């Protein structure tokens, strides 16, 4: 009841300065709305940009690096154990790119509970032949379901569907740039030649576009079985194992662990794409600092109006104190006053911020990089709204605190004697 009384008094004082109060609350509204719109938009963009590369990249990639044997035979020979052996002209070992025992490795990794899933891949360079022209390119043999689950390949397929790779035998999805150069379209058959000279005719069931010309000009996908057949390899032939982790931050450590455990090479996404992390951090920093500045400005607005109000309402403060309201009560009244502005301004700000985000999310945005995206990406995360309202309350509390402390210290004797 007492709280209600103090709030009641606070509201009455607020009414005395309604216009300025509205302006002060509008400052908060504006701050919060901008914060929400800005952060939602920035995060939406960030997520989209991340998805361009990070989502398309496995968190950990296991492969067989082409490298010379670490221990050359001469070093194993016991009669030369104490000697310093010099070997000139060391060449990489011809092990091929196959990962041995890939099936077991995949099973083991899939059982690891830090992992979302594992997808095998066969990567090989090929020549595409159409009429008289030959173009070099890359075919990735992928597991259709896992590839879609982990890397959302369908987002980049502008014609056809990834599912067709599984249902149509000897099928291929080729890059948009490649298709343009070869002058082929869906339903056409192209001839593919492997480095070993094997030839195959593959039917085009889809076109893929990543928006990166270098990739779109060479990249193509086929099913893992087709890729194995193409190269004349058995069903256990796998060149890459792609791992997605639940927590991307663990990638470097887990990559090292797997490399040791399975005796293969492993790279993590952080090492492969270091610049994207930096970009994301910078964009977030900009968004947050702009918003925080706006809210601080709004806070000063509230501080001003409260200061003015206190000077104007000295008499009221004096009589409240004379009739038994303590300094603490008076302080509470003015803090409530400030908080009322913060809550009202904040709530309207949240609504306005949501509206702004909604408007932004309907602005057309065409990018060749993401064929499925037609409007600006906006992230409608609840956390921004919570941060926004929390920040509004904190700023208004602090903005109210100093004038409230001043009001609490008002000496009624000085005021009353002055009349």
């Amino acid at each position, binding site marked *: *009841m*007492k709280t209600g*009384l103090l709030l009641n*008094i606070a509201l*009455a*004082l607020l*009414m*005395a300065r309604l216009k300025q109060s509205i302006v002060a609350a509008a400052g908060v509204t504006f701050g919060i709305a901008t914060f929400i719109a800005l952060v939602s938009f920035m995060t939406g963009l960030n997520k989209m940009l991340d998805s361009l590369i990070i989502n398309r990249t496995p968190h950990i990639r296991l492969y067989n690096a082409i490298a010379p044997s670490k221990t050359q035979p001469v070093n194993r020979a016991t009669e030369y154990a104490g000697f310093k052996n010099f070997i000139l002209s060391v060449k990489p070992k011809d092990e091929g790119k196959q990962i041995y025992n890939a099936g077991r490795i995949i099973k083991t990794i899939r059982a690891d509970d830090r992992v979302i899933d594992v997808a095998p891949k066969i990567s090989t360079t090929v020549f595409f032949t159409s009429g008289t022209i030959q173009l070099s390119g890359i075919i990735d043999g992928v597991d259709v379901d896992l590839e879609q689950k982990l890397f959302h390949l369908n987002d980049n397929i502008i014609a056809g569907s990834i599912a067709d790779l599984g249902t149509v035998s000897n099928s291929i999805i080729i890059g948009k740039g490649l298709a343009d150069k070869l002058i082929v379209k869906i339903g056409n058959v192209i001839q593919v030649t492997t480095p070993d000279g094997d030839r195959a005719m593959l039917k085009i069931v889809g076109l893929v576009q990543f928006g990166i010309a270098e990739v779109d000009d060479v990249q193509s996908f086929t099913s893992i079985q087709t890729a194995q057949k193409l190269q004349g390899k058995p069903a256990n032939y796998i060149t890459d194992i792609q791992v997605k982790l639940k927590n991307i931050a663990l990638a470097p450590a887990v990559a090292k662990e797997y490399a040791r455990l399975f005796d293969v090479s492993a790279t993590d996404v952080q090492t492969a794409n270091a610049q994207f992390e930096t970009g994301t951090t910078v964009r977030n920093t900009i968004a947050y600092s702009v918003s925080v500045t706006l809210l601080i400005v709004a806070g000063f607005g509230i501080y001003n109006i409260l200061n003015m109000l206190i000077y104007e309402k000295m*008499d*009221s403060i*004096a*009589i*409240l*104190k*004379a*009739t*038994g*309201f*303590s*300094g*603490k*009560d008076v302080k509470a009244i003015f803090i409530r006053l400030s908080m009322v502005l913060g809550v009202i301004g904040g709530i309207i700000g949240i609504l306005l911020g949501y509206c702004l985000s909604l408007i932004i999310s309907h602005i057309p945005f065409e990018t060749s990089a993401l064929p499925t995206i037609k409007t600006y990406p906006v992230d409608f995360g609840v956390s921004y709204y919570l941060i926004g309202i929390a920040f509004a309350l904190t700023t208004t509390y602090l903005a109210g605190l100093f004038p409230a402390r001043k009001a609490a210290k008002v*000496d*009624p*004797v000085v005021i*009353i*004697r002055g*009349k």
Partner: protein
Amino acid sequence: METTILQAVNINKYFLDPVRFRVLTDISFSIGRGSFVSITGKSGCGKSTLLYILSTMDTDYEGELLLNDEALRRKNDAELAIVRNQKIGFVFQFHYLIEEFNVLKNVMLPAMKLGKYTNELVEQKAMQHLKMLGIYDQALKNVSQLSGGQKQRVAIARALINDPLIIMGDEPTGNLDKKNSDVVFGIFKDICQENKQTIVVVTHDPDFAKRADRTIRMEDGKIIT
């Protein structure tokens, strides 16, 4: 013999600005329950200063002050606020009504702060006081719509709402004409006689002072009679 309600023991008060100056010198007196006391003296003799010390609003003094046998000297701000809320009612020269509230709400405010009764009961009580003071019909009006005399009566109703032991007035008739002064004096007299509440009024109006039960006359920070 009447019981003592307010007792001042050797109260000294200094103003430090611009130079150290002794405003009150060894003020000692006691006021009995239900008496009507006026404090009078020339302008600058320290009578208002004394009242503010008695009212507990000014805590910067030496000596001891006892209200209903309760020492007030060492109480903190919050405790003194409670004392003022429960035991002391104020009427000033200026009405000090809060313009954002209507008459009724102004009167109710100290009782709502006290929180002893429900709002309905407080409202009833406030209406009774307003009725007694003859401004019952103004209860729902805004403060700014009232005349000076009416405002002062609202201020008195506010002072009475928590049934204080003492009602203190600082020139309560200072801004009023003769007719309204008489009305206010009459009200004080009634309160004093009927409710057995103590009244301490600072005034330089000799007419007003004369009609009180007892007059404390001050000069240069000392009590002379």
